[in-house]
């Protein structure tokens, strides 16, 4: 939500001189570029801070430690991003979203990340014990299908936004 707010503030300055068609054109360009990169047609690096959150962050205790961890990951201050969807989402938020809707998108992003953590903890291998490594191995084994499913969910939502609400 912090990042979404920042995107709206910065995006409001960028989008101000652009007509609605221009704003959605920017979104379309970002979307096409990310898709082409995803399918290997284009090759370029997307900006990401390729550093893991250090374990020393948990020296702050059981409450402040996870809070700092979540802030650093959630705002993108430190993270690897194996998917281009956040970049498309960022473009959509920056170019078209009002602050309340940007906050919804930000909350959704956090929900998706939280669901990742929750499902990995709840995943039970056939041995009957929690095995988060097993969940991540399953993710790696089905990475292409998962990219397709999450991309489909993302695009369905984005298309519905454009169909229902047009070009704001």
């Amino acid at each position, binding site marked *: 939500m912090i990042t979404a707010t920042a995107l709206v503030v910065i995006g409001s300055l960028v989008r101000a001189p652009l007509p609605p068609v221009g704003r959605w054109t920017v979104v379309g360009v970002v979307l096409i570029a990310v898709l082409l990169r995803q399918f290997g047609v284009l090759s370029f690096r997307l900006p990401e801070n390729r550093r893991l959150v250090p374990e020393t962050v948990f020296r702050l205790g059981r409450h402040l430690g996870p809070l700092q961890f979540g802030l650093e990951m959630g705002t993108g201050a430190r*993270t690897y991003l194996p998917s281009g969807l956040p970049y*498309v989402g960022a473009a959509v938020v920056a170019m078209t979203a009002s602050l309340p809707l940007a906050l919804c998108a930000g909350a959704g992003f956090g929900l998706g990340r939280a669901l990742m953590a929750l499902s990995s903890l709840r995943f039970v291998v056939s041995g009957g014990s929690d095995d988060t490594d097993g969940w991540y191995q399953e993710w790696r084994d089905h990475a292409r299908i998962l990219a397709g499913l999450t991309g489909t969910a993302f695009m369905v939502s984005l298309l519905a936004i454009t169909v229902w609400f047009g070009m704001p």
Partner: protein
Amino acid sequence: MPLRLIWHPLTVAAVFVVAAGAAAVIGLAPTLWLMMGAAAGFATSGST
């Protein structure tokens, strides 16, 4: 349905698709933006 299947990443991702479809039909803006963000967030699974 075994817990292993309920929380499998494919199951969760499939639920995302269904939920996004339902949200698309209903057409509520906050829900659509929430789903779009959630799909992007879940797509980054595997990164830390």
